[in-house]
C-alpha cells in the first residue's frame, strides 16, 4: 500500500533479567497508514507497551530488539543514532500514561516545548515562543502565555496530559505513539483527552497508534485494532470486524468481560448481556510457549491448539490466529 507510513515485520523483544530471559514480544507485524488510528489492546503484560517503545528504540539496555520497523522506507532498528534522533519527535512522537512522571518536574512547560523546537527546527526565539503559544492553544490550555512559565506540578492532571500532548506535537510528527494516554485520568477527563487526540489526528492528518487496555476507548476512536496476548498479535482487523465478529477466542472472551460489548448482545438485542470473566492468568513469558498461549484459559481449546496457529486472513483483511475462528463467527 502506497500510503503506508509504518510497517513492522516480525518484531521481537527479549529482556535479559536476573532471573533469565523474558520473551516480551514475538512475531509482531503491524502496519500504520497515514492519518489512521490503530489500537493496540491487551491485558497488562501482553507486550503492547513494549511493542510501542521498541518502535523508536526507547527500551533500555537490557532489551534485545529484532525484526524490522520500516518507517517510510528506512529500517528504524538499523539506523545510526543521529538519524534515529531526527526521526524521534520530528516524525514519530510519543506520549505516556502518567504525565506527572513523564514531564520533567524541574523544567517549565515552555522550556519542554522549546527544546523540542530547538532540536527539530530552525525557528528563532520569537518564532519558537509563538509556536509554543499556538501549541498550548491547540490542546486547549487557556491563558497560554502565563502557562508557558508554569511547571508541571502547577497543572491539574488533565492539563498536564494536554501539556504533554502539546510538547509531543511541537515538531508536527506524522505519527503519534500514545501509551495508555487516558488511563491515569478521571473518567470525565479521559473522554476529553481522547476527543482531543482524535481531533488532532484528523486536523493534522497525523496517524496514531493507541495502546490501551480499554476496549471502549478503541471502539470510540480507532479505525483498526490489533489484539495482543502474551507478546503476540492474535487478531487484527477493522474495529467493526474485530469487535463485531471476533475470530479469536481470546478477543471473544475479552469482549464478554465488557458490559454492552459481548458479541451476543447484538443477536439477543439485550443491553445487558451476561458478563463472563476470563478464568486463570496469562502465561509466564520467561519460558517458551508451545502452541496457542491462550489455550489453557480457553473454552474453545482442542488438541490442535498444542501447535501455534498461524494468522489467517478471512479474505476481508480480518486476520486471526485461532483454530476456532470459523466456529466463533458461526455462533
Amino acid at each position, binding site marked *: 500500500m502506497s500510503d503506508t507510513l509504518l510497517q513492522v515485520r516480525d518484531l521481537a523483544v527479549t529482556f535479559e533479567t536476573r532471573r533469565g530471559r523474558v520473551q516480551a514480544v514475538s512475531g509482531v507485524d503491524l502496519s500504520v497508514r497515514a492519518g489512521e488510528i490503530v489500537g493496540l489492546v491487551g491485558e497488562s503484560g501482553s507486550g503492547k507497551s513494549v511493542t510501542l517503545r521498541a518502535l523508536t528504540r526507547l527500551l533500555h539496555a537490557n532489551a534485545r530488539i529484532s525484526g524490522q520497523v520500516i518507517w517510510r522506507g528506512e529500517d528504524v532498528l538499523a539506523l545510526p543514532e543521529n538519524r534515529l534522533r531526527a526521526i524521534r519527535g520530528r516524525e514519530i512522537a510519543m506520549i505516556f500514561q502518567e504525565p506527572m512522571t513523564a514531564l*520533567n518536574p524541574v523544567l517549565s512547560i515552555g522550556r519542554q516545548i522549546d527544546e523540542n523546537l530547538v532540536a527539530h527546527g530552525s525557528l528563532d526565539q520569537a518564532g519558537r515562543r509563538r509556536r509554543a503559544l499556538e501549541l498550548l492553544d491547540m490542546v486547549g490550555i487557556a491563558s497560554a502565555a502565563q502557562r508557558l512559565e508554569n511547571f508541571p506540578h502547577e497543572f491539574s492532571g488533565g492539563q498536564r496530559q494536554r501539556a504533554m500532548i502539546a510538547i509531543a506535537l511541537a515538531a508536527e510528527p506524522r505519527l503519534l505513539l500514545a501509551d495508555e494516554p487516558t488511563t491515569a485520568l478521571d473518567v470525565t477527563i479521559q473522554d476529553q483527552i481522547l476527543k482531543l487526540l482524535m481531533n488532532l489526528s484528523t486536523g493534522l492528518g497525523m496517524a496514531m497508534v493507541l495502546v490501551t487496555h480499554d476496549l471502549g476507548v478503541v471502539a470510540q476512536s480507532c479505525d483498526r485494532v490489533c489484539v495482543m496476548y502474551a507478546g503476540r498479535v492474535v487478531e487484527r482487523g477493522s474495529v467493526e470486524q474485530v469487535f463485531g465478529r471476533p475470530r479469536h477466542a481470546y478477543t471473544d472472551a475479552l469482549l464478554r468481560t465488557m458490559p454492552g460489548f459481548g458479541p451476543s448482545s447484538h443477536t439477543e438485542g439485550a443491553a445487558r448481556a451476561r458478563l463472563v470473566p476470563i478464568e486463570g492468568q496469562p502465561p509466564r513469558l520467561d519460558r517458551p510457549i508451545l502452541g496457542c498461549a491462550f489455550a489453557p484459559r480457553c473454552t474453545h481449546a482442542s488438541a490442535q491448539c498444542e501447535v501455534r496457529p498461524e494468522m489467517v486472513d478471512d479474505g476481508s483483511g480480518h486476520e486471526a490466529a485461532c483454530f476456532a475462528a470459523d466456529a466463533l463467527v458461526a455462533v
Partner: protein
Amino acid sequence: MNRLGMVGLRLLQILPTLVLIGVVAFVLVRLLPGDPVSNMLGDHATDATIARLQAQMGLDQPIWVQFLLFVRHAVQGDFGDSIAYHVPVARLIAERLPVTITLAALATLIAIGLAVPLAFISAVNADRWPDYLIRAVFQVGLSSPIFYVGLLLLTVFAAALRWFPVGGYGEGIGDHLYHLFLPAVALALSFSAVIMRSLRASILAVLTAEFVDFARSKGLSQRIILLRHVLRNALISTVTLIGLHMGSLLGGAVITESVFAVPGVGRLMVESIFARDYTVIQALTMALAVVVSLTFLATDLVQMWLDPRAAK
C-alpha cells in the same frame, strides 16, 4: 517576591540560634577544667597572684554576673580582648575567618569539579570498568586520613616538584588562592568522594525516570538529556549534602590548617581551647554559627532554584 520574604525570615531565625549558641559556649568554656589565668602564669604562680589577676579580669565574679557583662558588651559589638593574644577578639576573627571560608569554598569547588563529571561517567557506565575504576579510586580517597593526604601532597607537589608553597597564606587574593590550593585539594578528596557516591546514586535513579524516556522520544541529544534533564534532577538531593558538608568544613579544617600552616580559625579555635582563651572561644563559636547558618541558607536557595517544587 515571596522568596525575598523567606530569606528575611531565615536571617531573623539566625538570631535566636545565635543567642542559644552564645549561652552554651559561655557556660561550656567555664566548665572546662583549668582557667586562663593559671594557664598564662604557669606552674610557679602563687595563689595570691592568680587570685589578683582573676579579680582584675572579672573572673572572680559569679558566672551570671560575668554573663550579663558579656551580653552588655556583645550587643554593642564588643566581644572583648583575647586573653592570650591581647588584641580585640573581633580583629582576630576578622583576620582568620576569611582564610577558613576561602579554604572551605575552594575545597568545595574542587570537590564538585571532580565529583560531578566523574559521577556522570560512573553512572552512565554503571557496572562496567570505568565505573569500577572511578569508585575504587574514590574509595581510596574517602578512606585516607586527611593529614596523610596532606603530607603526601606537600612532599610531592611542594617539597619535590616545588609547584606549590609548603605553607602559609601569602599576600593578595591570587597568592592566597595559590597558597590554599594544596590544603583545599587535601580537604576536597574525601569530600568529592562523598559527593560522587551520592550523585552517582541519584543519577542512576533519575536515568530510569519516565521523563528521561520522554526526553529521548523527543529526539533530544544525549548531551542535553544528561545535562538538562538528568543532572539538574540528580543534583537536588546532592546539594543538601554539599551544604551540610561545607558547614562541617568550616569548623573542622583544623588538621589541614595545621599540616599546611594555614592561619585559619580551625587552628585558632584549638589553640584558644588549650589556652582557655574564653573570649576567643565564645566569639568564634558564634561567628562560625553565623557562617554555617548562612551556608545552609545559601544551600536552600540553590535548592529552590534547582527545584521549583521546593519554592512553593
